């Protein structure tokens, strides 16, 4: 681990040899994003120097640099949560990670070098030609400016701010600062601290009072090297009575050389506001995906997380809602699929902090082959509250006997007049079931895929159409690949 004290000598990085990191910045910033035509990166390894470098490249205000440096100290001081999570975390080599890549970063490989099976996956998923190159790491920039500016134009008429976090910090510093790091404090966990030290990319959204954004805001339309990077930081604020849906990720796996993805997403739903945050992610097999997501729901507000995790070596993600105001509602709908060699450690956190708050958790996991899924939840209803409700439902589907699944619901409800309900089930796709479907002419892969889709059907129906269609296609591919 890179527990280098801040004063330790820093290994030479390519960044050290660059003359002036700031000289290359294109000051004539683009209309909707800052074009960075330079080719700098922060080198490998993490130190105070790395953090200062990132902050300098981004021309950040001093308070942000200070925020980052404090976060770095917290990160270095915190132990790995291996005591409750998994020892696999010890295999992350923090010295080998690149903490900042500018969007002008030269591609590390050519299209010819992209493995055939990856190309085939793109084809099967119907990923458009120009996006394939970006996703495969052949092109650093994916030009979706047209699609994005349409959305931005449409919503900005309503006064909605929808920019990347770097831009948000520059152009809306007061608004940003008011909520930034408040829902998820730097020291929440080791990886939120890491993100706080080196974050770049992610979205900043503000929806003004009473504004209901009709179309979902999609991060997908504005991916570039930075936004789609490893340490995104997203902050969404829905002012009183506002409503917004945000969709992140895309179902095409991103094939990169980076192995650590550690995002922080903070949501603030003020009085009567509604935020829905939808994620469908498909990570390559070597990625550690360690993400902290939480929202605060004020009086009569509602926050709903819809979270689909497919792939990765290890995903640790427990979207949460702090139910801060009376009658606030929180919901987590999650689907996790762990195939051979993958571990999905996912769940939800519901912190009830006001009377008559309600929370609902529905988590479905699918374990295939040696895949491992864990549900980890926290529901906390303290003694002094009245009229709170929680419903937790965890269902696991096992495909073949080697799969492993664990459930740690951890529901604490102390007060009177609060009610909690917890249901858990484990089911198996049996050999008989697969044979039955094969007897009707479906291949083994199609049969498994149909069983999995059947298992998540009631949740997938809640997704926007295009996401549920993509999710289905993705499951088809996963299952096809898992047949020996």
């Amino acid at each position, binding site marked *: 681990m890179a527990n280098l004290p801040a004063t330790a000598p820093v290994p030479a990085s390519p960044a050290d040899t660059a003359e002036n990191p700031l000289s290359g910045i294109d000051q004539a910033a683009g209309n909707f994003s800052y074009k960075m035509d330079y080719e700098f990166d922060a080198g490998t390894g993490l130190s105070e120097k790395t953090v200062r470098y990132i902050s300098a490249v981004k021309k950040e205000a001093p308070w942000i640099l200070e925020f980052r440096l404090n976060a770095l100290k917290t990160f270095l001081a915190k132990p790995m949560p291996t005591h409750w999570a998994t020892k696999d975390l010890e295999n992350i080599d923090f010295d080998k990670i690149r903490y900042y890549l500018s969007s002008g970063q030269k591609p590390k490989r050519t299209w010819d070098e992209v493995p055939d099976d990856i190309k085939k996956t793109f084809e099967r998923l119907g990923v458009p030609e120009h996006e394939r190159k970006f996703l495969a790491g052949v092109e650093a920039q994916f030009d979706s400016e047209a699609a994005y500016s349409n959305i931005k134009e449409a919503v900005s008429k309503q006064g909605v701010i929808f920019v990347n976090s770097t831009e948000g910090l520059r152009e809306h510093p007061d608004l940003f600062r008011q909520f930034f790091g408040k829902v998820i404090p730097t020291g929440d966990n080791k990886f939120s601290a890491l993100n706080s030290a080196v974050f770049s990319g992610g979205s900043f959204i503000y929806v003004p009072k009473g504004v209901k954004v009709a179309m979902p805001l999609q991060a997908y339309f504005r991916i570039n090297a930075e936004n789609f990077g490893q340490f995104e930081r997203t902050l969404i604020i829905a002012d009183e009575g506002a409503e917004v849906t945000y969709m992140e990720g895309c179902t095409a796996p991103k094939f990169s050389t980076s192995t650590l993805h550690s995002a922080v997403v903070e949501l603030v739903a003020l009085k009567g506001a509604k935020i829905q945050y939808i994620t469908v992610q498909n990570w390559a097999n070597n990625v550690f995906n360690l993400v902290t997501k939480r929202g605060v729901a004020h009086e009569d507000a509602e926050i709903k997380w819809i979270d689909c995790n497919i792939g990765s070596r290890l995903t640790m993600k427990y979207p949460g809602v702090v139910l801060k105001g009376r009658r606030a509602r929180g919901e987590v709908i999650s689907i996790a699929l762990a195939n051979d060699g993958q571990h999905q450690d996912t769940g939800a956190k519901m912190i009830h902090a006001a009377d008559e708050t309600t929370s609902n958790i529905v988590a479905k996991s699918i374990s295939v082959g040696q895949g491992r899924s864990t549900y980890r939840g926290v529901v906390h209803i303290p003694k002094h509250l009245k009229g709170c409700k929680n419903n937790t439902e965890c269902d696991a589907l096992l495909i073949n006997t080697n799969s492993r699944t664990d459930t740690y619901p951890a529901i604490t409800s102390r007060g009177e007049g609060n009610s909690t309900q917890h249901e858990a089930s484990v*089911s198996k796709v*049996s*050999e*008989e*079931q697969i*044979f*039955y*479907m*094969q*007897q*009707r*002419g*479906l*291949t*083994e892969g*199609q*049969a498994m895929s*149909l*069983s999995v*889709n*059947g*298992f*998540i*059907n*009631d949740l997938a129906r809640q997704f926007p159409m295009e996401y549920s269609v993509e999710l289905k296609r993705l499951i088809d591919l996963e299952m096809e690949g898992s047949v020996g």
Partner: protein
Amino acid sequence: MSQLEIKDLHISIGDKPIVKGLTLTVRRGEVHALMGPNGTGKSTLAKAIAGHPSYTITSGEVLLDGRSILAMHPDERARAGIFLAFQYPSEIPGVSIANFLRAAVQARLGEGEELDATAYYKRLYSKMDLLQIDRKFTSRSVNDGFSGGEKKRCEILQMAMLEPAFALMDETDSGLDIDALRIVADGVNALRSTNLGVLMITHYQRLLGYIVPDHVHVMWDGRIVKSGDKSLALELEAKGYDWVKNELVPA
């Protein structure tokens, strides 16, 4: 020469031989009834022909139109025209009958061929009407929470939709009430006229009154010990399995 030939077939479960040298030929358009006491290996025969992985064929052949199917996967056998109406159909939670059958029909189309959804639903509804299955069933999960009789009817619906060349019907009659038996029999008879070959496993003469078999075979301890026409079923019903045991089974 469209036919399903079972030649001196031996089937084991684990090390235990269950079917011990069974020979039978079913031509398209024919109905063969297979009768025999519990545990004699009737379902084993049907599942092994369909390619169930738990059943090992230790010797013998199964030929479809002269070609061996034994090296084929279960789904390949199905697409080649073999249908098994299960004695105990599996439940598939979350997968609607409409979607399941659609996937099965789609699986029979050529590469790049798209299923015509309107035509598909039209056909599905007409088959459901034929079998007097409520249309509400299309959105219900396959066999999930179905009554015994509903499951059997759902098997025949699938058979009607998939139009196999040969159907292995394993005790489709058990669990059906009197009216349902009639309806299912009418459905099978309608398919029979389309050149379907049937191997019908049953314990009861009653079904054979509705679906009149061309041949009746009596199975005992993994072998066919007597074959005859429809009158054999009546004789069997009158005399019981003691007759088979004492007079037909070689000592």
